Every structure is written in structure tokens, then in C-alpha cells.
């Protein structure tokens, strides 16, 4: 069913909006793309999940400062290393009026394990969900999982009865979504503070405040109009012209223009996404280099030479308008497991670079191709060009091969056997926990156990693997942090990666609009306060 504004409905809403006493507050915002569908388990992607976070809710959630807070669960405790007891909130209603109970939690867990779900990995952490009473569940994990409460911030609870009634008990995937069972992709029934009243994918989505919501929220917004605007210039123009209350992302180059315009300002903050360079450390000969017969990146001195040749501050000042946070860690400060004492970027020292290269037998330098996306991260292509310029000063000839993200990932991804010699990538752990970073980027790639999938350069240190396996299950925070510190110390000594910076969040808002700018780049409508 598609909601479309008819002339009559338009007239009715206008009449309502101007009715005396009605204090309608409409919040209009734009993002560069649209949520893929309304199915909360169809795609595990930041924007889609953040967008749906206003209509659906989770057991646990993040507040504006990324602290873990209760949402549909009121409290939880670990009763044994593998069992978590969640006490569920009472009096919560779904948008169709039915009650939220333990059955819905169990149903949701089963649904995220279905074929079309993109949350199967998270669902797989859980081995059983048992109903204790209507408002208590025991969640059992296969192995001790200290990050469970964080993982659950991505699992939206759906209503069992509604899903069964509408043939939506399975998540809709691109292929299994037949012409008939895509109901949950186009309709919603969450417990969140807003309901979707009109949606045309890629064109417009209108939300209305849900009167039956359980919470006592800060926001004074009663209606939300969301429009995806793909062109940066158009999005910024729409903000400056006053047609939008918030637009994101905006190019960092446009900050001055937005700030100098009447009625709008740029809103910048640190994002939890770490940008870094990776190097092919597994092939015996690089695919894209003039060095034949051997792989220079297998030599630690070469990797260190690269690290010391890149001036992170210059990238910050010249490319990122002073808004990035140079880093020596593959981890942002907002991530659980970050330790600022461990954050020691490699010193910028081109002379040392040259010396290291000469020692390794590359005194005359060599050439290598750097794969780079050009529409994925903030100024991604410019960062690659800047790094190439800096490496040229120590004799390394870097050819930057920048492509749109679809082509870039198709080339460098593990599915394509990591067809790259050097690449730029960014990472925000979905669970906001260090274990995700270790398992995806740093441990040795193992296709059987599904770890190291994003370790495109296949850096491999078995000692770190041992630690990562323990970190996954260690529940004592202090012991865990000590292990994490050990792992990152080894990574830094090995020069496994070249961390660059955490990129800035870049939003534009109308004057007087208050909003929490979350480090995971999610706009939570609960925090929006209009003047």
C-alpha cells in the first residue's frame, strides 16, 4: 500500500495545520540517499537503521553521547557467562495498538535468522531466547559475549501478530522478496515515537508523532518530512534557502558558505569512523607495482617508511579544513576499548623514511597503485592524492586509482580476492566495540570462520588472533582492556596498517534547531528541538 497525498487530504492537512490552538511543528530534513526499505532487518547499513530508529525500537540503544541506555528493556543483567536476563518495559504499544511482550522479542530473534535478513550474524550470536514471563526474557549466547547489549542496539523489535497477519514473518531480501511478500518493506508497525504516514521511496517520507508512545521525549516535533537529495550543491542550496531545517552530509568545503548565509550554520563534530590505508602483505608479488618477483610490503621497514612519510597534520589542515582527528589507532575515542595512552601516531619523518627504504633495498623507490573510493568518505580522493604527494617526496611513486564506491568495492573486496596492492578504507564498528574492529580488520583472514573479511591486505599476526579470540569472550573490563592494548601494541610495532584520522561529521542546520549529533552519523529524531 502506498500513501499518496490526494487533493482532499492536502486540503484537510492544511486546514488542520492552521486550525487555532494546533501547535504543529514540522521538521524537514534531507540526506544524500534514502533508506533502502522499511523492513528493519533487510539491510544492516547505518542510514537505513538510523532512519528506522524513529519508527522501530530496540531493547538497548544509544543516547546522543553514544552511551548505552535502556529502550524497550528497562534493565538487564548477566546471570551466567552465557545468559543475559532482560526485563522488558511494560505498557509499550505498537503503532497498531497491540502490546509489546516477550513473544515479540522471541519472534524478532527468529526473524533475523531468516534467509532475507541482513542481521544473521548478530542473530547467530544468540543460541536461544526463553520467555520467563510476559515481560522478562533470558537470552542465551553460544559463547560468552560481553558485547551483546551493544549488538542488540541494531535489532529492531517487530510485532509478532502484525507480521504473521501480513505475511511478513521473513525478512525481505532482494531475491526472495516476491511480488507479494514485501509488505514489511513498504509498511511499518513499530513502537517508536513516529509513524510513517506517507512514503514514496527516493522521493519523500512523512512521519507523524505517535501519540501512544511510552516515553517522555525531549523533542517538540509533531511531523517530519524527509527528502533524499543526492546532489551536494542542491542540498546545501535547499538548506540556505530555508526549505530545510537540517541537511546532511554537507561538503566541508561549504562550511564557510553555510555559516555566512543568514539563518543556517554548519554543525561539525567527530565521527567514530577511522580512515586508514592498507597494504597487500600476502601476495608474493604485488599486482600493481614495478617491483617484480617480490612484495616490498612484506618488509616491515617498507611499511614503516610509508608510515613515517605521511604527514597527518598536513592532511588535517589542507584536506580536511582542520576538522579531522589524526590518529595512530584503528579505533575512535567513542568506541569501547579505546585507550588514549595507546594513541601514538607514527612520527612524520621523511628522512627516516628514506633511510628505512634504503635499508630495505629500495633506495631508488618504487611505484605502487593506491585504490581509492571517490564518493564514500569525506574527501576520500583528495586524501589519497595528498598521501601520494607526500610519498613522492621519499621516492615512492603512487598512482591514485579513484573510482565510485560500487566499482571500488567490487575491485578490492574479499569476494574479488582483494584485487589491490594498497587501498584506502574507513571503518565504524557497528557494535561500537573494539572486538568488531579486531575481528573484521586485524585478525588473519579466515574464510571458514568468517573473520578478517575486511582485512583486504591480509595482514596476519597469529598472536593477535589469540588475543582477539579472548577479547570476544572476556567479560572483565580491565582484563579485556589490557588484552586490547597488547593487540594494538603489536599491530603498531608490525605497522600492519597506516591509520590516518577520524573524519568529521558535517551537517548543516537552520538557526535555532537543536539536535544531538551522534558520532555514528545517525540523526535521532528524539533529540530534535525546533524553535
Amino acid at each position: 500500500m502506498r500513501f499518496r497525498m490526494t487533493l482532499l487530504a492536502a486540503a484537510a492537512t492544511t486546514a488542520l495545520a492552521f486550525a487555532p490552538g494546533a501547535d504543529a511543528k514540522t521538521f524537514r530534513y534531507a540526506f544524500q540517499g534514502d533508506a533502502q526499505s522499511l523492513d528493519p532487518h533487510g539491510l544492516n547499513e547505518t542510514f537505513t537503521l538510523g532512519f528506522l530508529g524513529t519508527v522501530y525500537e530496540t531493547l538497548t540503544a544509544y543516547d546522543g553521547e553514544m552511551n548505552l541506555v535502556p529502550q524497550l528493556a528497562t534493565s538487564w543483567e548477566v546471570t551466567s557467562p552465557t545468559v543475559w536476563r532482560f526485563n522488558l518495559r511494560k505498557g509499550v504499544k505498537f503503532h497498531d495498538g497491540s502490546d509489546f511482550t516477550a513473544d515479540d522479542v522471541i519472534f524478532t530473534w527468529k526473524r533475523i535468522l531468516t534467509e532475507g535478513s541482513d542481521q544473521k550474524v548478530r542473530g547467530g550470536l544468540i543460541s536461544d531466547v526463553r520467555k520467563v514471563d510476559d515481560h522478562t526474557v533470558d537470552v542465551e549466547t553460544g559463547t560468552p559475549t560481553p558485547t551483546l547489549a551493544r549488538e542488540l542496539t541494531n535489532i529492531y523489535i517487530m510485532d509478532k501478530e502484525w507480521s504473521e497477519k501480513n505475511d511478513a514473518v521473513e525478512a525481505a531480501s532482494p531475491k526472495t522478496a516476491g511480488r507479494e511478500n514485501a509488505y514489511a518493506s513498504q509498511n511499518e508497525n513499530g513502537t517508536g515515537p513516529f509513524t510513517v504516514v506517507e512514503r514514496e521511496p527516493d522521493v519523500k517520507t512523512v512521519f507523524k508523532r505517535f501519540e501512544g508512545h511510552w516515553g517522555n521525549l525531549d523533542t517538540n516535533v509533531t511531523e517530519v518530512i524527509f527528502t533524499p537529495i543526492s546532489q551536494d550543491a542542491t542540498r546545501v542550496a535547499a538548506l540556505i534557502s530555508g526549505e530545510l531545517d537540517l541537511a546532511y552530509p554537507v561538503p566541508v568545503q561549504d562550511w564557510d558558505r553555510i555559516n555566512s548565509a543568514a539563518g543556517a550554520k554548519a554543525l561539525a563534530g567527530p565521527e567514530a569512523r577511522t580512515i586508514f590505508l592498507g597494504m597487500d602483505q600476502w601476495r608474493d608479488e604485488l599486482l600493481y607495482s614495478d617491483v617484480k618477483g617480490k612484495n616490498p610490503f612484506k618488509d616491515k621497514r617498507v611499511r614503516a617508511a610509508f608510515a613515517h612519510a605521511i604527514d597527518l597534520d598536513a592532511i588535517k589542515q589542507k584536506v580536511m579544513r582542520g576538522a579531522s582527528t589524526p590518529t595512530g589507532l584503528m579505533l575512535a575515542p567513542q568506541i569501547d576499548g579505546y585507550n588514549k595512552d595507546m594513541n601514538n601516531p607514527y612520527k612524520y619523518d621523511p628522512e627516516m623514511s628514506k633511510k628505512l627504504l634504503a635499508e630495505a633495498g629500495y633506495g631508488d623507490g618504487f611505484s605502487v597503485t593506491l585504490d581509492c573510493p571517490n564518493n564514500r568518505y569525506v574527501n576520500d580522493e583528495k586524501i589519497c592524492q595528498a598521501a601520494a604527494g607526500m610519498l613522492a617526496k621519499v621516492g615512492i611513486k603512487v598512482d591514485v586509482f579513484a573510482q565510485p564506491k560500487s566499482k571500488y568495492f567490487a575491485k578490492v573486496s574479499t569476494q574479488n580476492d582483494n584485487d589491490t596492492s594498497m587501498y584506502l578504507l574507513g571503518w565504524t564498528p557497528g557494535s561500537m566495540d573494539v572486538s568488531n574492529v579486531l575481528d573484521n580488520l586485524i585478525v588473519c583472514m579466515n574464510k571458514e570462520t568468517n573473520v578478517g573479511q575486511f582485512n583486504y591486505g591480509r595482514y596476519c599476526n597469529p598472536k593477535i588472533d589469540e588475543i582477539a579470540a579472548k577479547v570476544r569472550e572476556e567479560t572483565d573490563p580491565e582484563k579485556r582492556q589490557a588484552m586490547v592494548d597488547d593487540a594494538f601494541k603489536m599491530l603498531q610495532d608490525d605497522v600492519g596498517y597506516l591509520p590516518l584520522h577520524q573524519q568529521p561529521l558535517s551537517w548543516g542546520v537552520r538557526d535555532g534547531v537543536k539536535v544531538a549529533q551522534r558520532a555514528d552519523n545517525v540523526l535521532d529524531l528524539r533529540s530534535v528541538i525546533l524553535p
Partner: protein
Amino acid sequence: MIAFIIRRLLQSVVVMLIVGLIAFSLFRYVGNPVDNLVGQDTTLEERIALTERLGLNDPFFVQFGRFVLNAVQGDFGMSYRHRRPVENLIAERLPATLELSAVAALMALLIGIPMGVYTGLRRDGVLSKLFMAISLIGVSLPTFLIGILLILLFGVILRWLPTFGRGEVVDIGWWSTGLLTVSGIKALLMPAFTLALFQMTLIMRLVRSEMLEVLRTDYIKFARARGLANRAVNFGHALKNTLVPVITITGLQLGSIIAFAIITESVFQWPGMGLLFIQAISEVDIPVMAAYLCMIAFFFVVINLIVDLLYYAVDPRLRVDVGTRGGHG
């Protein structure tokens, strides 16, 4: 006549097949759709399984054959991204693009022809020189830049017109129109003008040079000698005889207006087919790309057919049933 139309329509099938073939051979180079369909935590196994399920590992001719077979039955597949039938998506977006294109084409004709006639008649007038200068801008500036400049002037500085979108639309059956609401018409002005500008200048220059040509001919001199009013000479005789090339070009350009709408639509976030297509490219939504390209090919064929038919109406010499072969030299 009917045989002629049927023959042309059959040709269109061949054209669409060839376009489809070329399109499919290019899809290998646009990237891997699976990366856009799953999140970062999805396992490699599942990615491979999904690639297999979508049939992306099949040889190129198998994929193309499957597309043709389904398309013949009216099934263009499911959009990867929207998870909805492609034909529904296109049907939803079609009105926006057709309205925009039609208004742009009308603008181009209604402004371009009078400007062309005027500059043809008064070659040295100040206004003519101004028109020619403006037309130079229209021909040389890229659509993208014109759109941005208009947004800056009318949207941001003057704030008369909305910078994006289609305004409020009204549904008439399955057709959604923005022509019946004030906000819809306001939203249409800038994109339509942006799209029309190039065609407008083209038509103006064409009409002008044709007018200059025709005004030199003997029959115009005789018409003046007969003492006909200027109006009758200029419009009744001169303009009418310039129209054959104008119709050809306008017809062909109508196709390009629909195709060029891609850029205008993405600048103004106009929710038409062009925007759908451009988003499909960036997300590697192969079913949408294939259906769109075949449809545009079909449009071109149909428009050419209509142009050919219009010749009969305008130029009596082409009508076989008219025996006399008179007219101008």
C-alpha cells in the same frame, strides 16, 4: 501507411534488442551490486550465495537471454534496491519526467520560434543581437551549471522558487500531476527552463537561418510585389516553409530532452525516471538500468515515427495521393 507504421514498430523491437545487448555487456563494468545490498557485517559466504541467487555468476548471454525472455512477458524483474517490480517503479516515475519534458519542449518551441522569426526579420536590431548573445550562452553552458545558477538566483537569493522536488502532486488515476497545484507549477519552472534552454536556442538559430534563406527566395519577393501584408508574407509563406527542418529537429530533440532530463532531474532532485536511473547506476541496480535503457530506445523509435508522419501533414510534396508537385523551388 499502416504497413509503414507496422514496419517501423518491428524495427523498434530490433533496436531495443541491440540496446539491451549493449547495455548488458556494459553492466559487468559498473561494479558489484551485492556490496550495496548487504551491510558490512554480512559474511563472505552469504555475499557469494546472494551473487549466485541473483544469477550474476551466469554467463553474459544467459543473463541477457533471461532478461529478454522475461521482458517479452512484461516482467522486467525486481529492483535490487527498492525490492519492488521495475515496471511499477518506472510507471510511478514516468509522469514526472513526461510532464517535465513536455513543458520543456513547449517552452523551447513557444519561445524559440518567435525569437528565431524576430532575429530573422530584423537581423541588425539591438534585440536580435541580445537574443543571439543569450543563445550563445544557452548553447555553450552545461545544463548542470545553468541549473545550479538558477537555483542560486531564484531559490537562494530571491527565494521565489523551491530549490528541489516536485511540489504537491495530485493523482489522476495512476498519473500524478504537478500541473494542478501552485507549488507544483512553481517547482516545475526552473527545471523545465533548464532543460528547455539548449533546445530553445537551437530552435531559434535554426528558424533564423531558415527564415533568412526563405526570405531571399523569389516567391517571397513576388508575394510582396502582390502587395500582401507583411504578416501574411512572414508567417503564412515564409515561416510555414521553414517548418519541415524545425519539426525534424524538434522531434529528434524531444528524445534527447527525455534522455537529458537525467542531469536536470538530478540537479533539482526531480523525482522522474532520470533520477531513478542515476540512482540505479550508483547502486548498481541492474534491472532498473536495463529497463530504462530499453524504454528510452523505444521512445526514440516512436518519436522518429511520429516525426515521419508529421512530414506528411506539413509538406504536401511528400503526400503520394497529391498529384501536383508544385510548391516553391
